[in-house]
């Protein structure tokens, strides 16, 4: 649970940075979005839910 919260927080910070700061070159923003997406996507909670029921 703790690990998941940290992952989501990191992804969220990267997302906010990318959303608020316009980097030059602009592909840095895109890169930040992609990294943020990948971090949060790794958390596959569907599998853990299936385990419960």
């Amino acid at each position, binding site marked *: 649970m703790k690990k*998941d919260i940290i992952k989501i927080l990191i992804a969220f910070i990267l*997302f906010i940075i*990318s959303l608020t700061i316009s980097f030059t070159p602009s592909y840095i*923003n895109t890169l930040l979005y992609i990294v*943020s997406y990948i971090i949060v*996507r790794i958390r596959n*909670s*569907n599998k853990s*839910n299936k385990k419960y029921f």
Partner: protein
Amino acid sequence: MSIATIGAFAIGEFSEAVAVMIFYQVGELLQDYAVDKSKASIKSLLNIRPDYANVKRNNEIIKVNPEEVNIEEIIIVKPGERIPLDGIIIDGKSMIDTSALTGESVPKSVKAQDEVLSGCINKNGLLEVKVTKKFKESTVNKMLELVQNASDKKAQTENFITKFAKIYTPVVVLIAFIIATIPSIFFGNFAQWLYRALSFLVVSCPCALVISIPLGFFAGIGRSAKAGVLIKGGNYLEALSKINTLVFDKTGTLTKGVFEVQSINPINISKDELIKLVAHAESYSTHPIANSIKKAYAKQINNSIISNVQEIAGLGIEAIVEEKNILVGNEKLMLQKNINYIKSKEVGTVLYVAINKEFAGTILISDEIKENTKTVLNSLKQHYIAKTVMLTGDKKEIAEDVAKKLEIDEVYSELLPDKKVKKVEELLNNKNKNKTLAFVGDGINDSPALAVSDVGIAMGALGSDAAIEAADIVIMTDELSKIETAIKISKKTMKIVKENIIFSIVVKIAILILTAIGFSNMWQAVFADVGVSILAVLNVVLRKEYI
């Protein structure tokens, strides 16, 4: 969700794609937390598994795993320790806390020769216990297995949601595909329709239903276990909520199942003298009636004054006590021995007594109705039940007398176990198809009837393996009021489950329509999806203590 976010990336909507995934994961995290919490509350409830047993071997006390202790071995239970195995106290007295098994908060006093069950906590005295069951067969292990397996048996509503999700997912993907392609052929602007289709996919996720419904049943089963009612699955919880006919076994369920002397009616002799002579005449018999006579006499039997005891099969006993000829038995015995007796009008088992061939009076023995039975039955009828039925193997007049006292609607007497099953089947055929019938029995002789009914409820099943196996719902104590508690919990659980189903589906359909026609964007869609899930989960989590 993956298709939607990857699609958003493809059309250059990076911020939306990431936001959708972050908020989705936040929702999932909250759901995980709720599930973990619910599981933990059941686990803490079942935190009754004993870690060790102090076993006496070769005059030494050694700490071993309860699984390694054999039947007949002696274990020592110190104050504050959990009793690790079922057994009989051979030395010591104490107060024991049975709340983990029964939900009963008042400690029970126990002494030598009393039976103790694993899972209870020894409060003060030191107890020496002779083990009567291996750990695998012990009460605590049976209970743990039962509750842990409860979530495997899904309710009709849960199964419906699983089936619904299976059909629903391909259907929404197809609709999203249609939204992305067909309108753009006629109106152009493919990117806009694709965006709508992707938003549609985001909002279509059925997580609120998939998570909150099992969570609701889980909370209901946990809550009832806390009250000393073990429900073997969500399906039985759901069936219990639809109950309208309650069928009871009489002996041990509505009555105490213990024969007691109700009245002594002597003729030309004192009550004390009559019960003394009869108790001595019956002293060699182990029949429940003889035991109740000995219990009523409550003094030491003097064997030196008894001689020539003869049991007359099916009629009674003849014996010489204090050099008097004593005849104790039923009416037939009096007729056979040509005794001029007065027929008793009392309801119950009547023992006729003759001393030296002269009629000396009667003793009435009958089973006692449990305390509060009438109040509980009245309350059940007032709130939940349309019809109460009593089935018994007992005589017609005794059955009718009990039914009249308890205001039971229908009574069927002189039924053997197979006839009881037939009667339950008949009642099942005649009931309203949308409602259920529950059979309440003591679980040992009533196993077939418990099995055929919609819901089999075993009463006072603590320590009885047969009852735990046969019933769908196990009430650990012999309190009838727990049936009402269980029905109340089932109704509240089903209310929460239905609220979640209606709320999730209605909101989801509304947002799906708005998204398809372009009134909401992906951000709003994700808030709607996560929001519905969180509200549904909160509806269970915050209300589970009030179930």
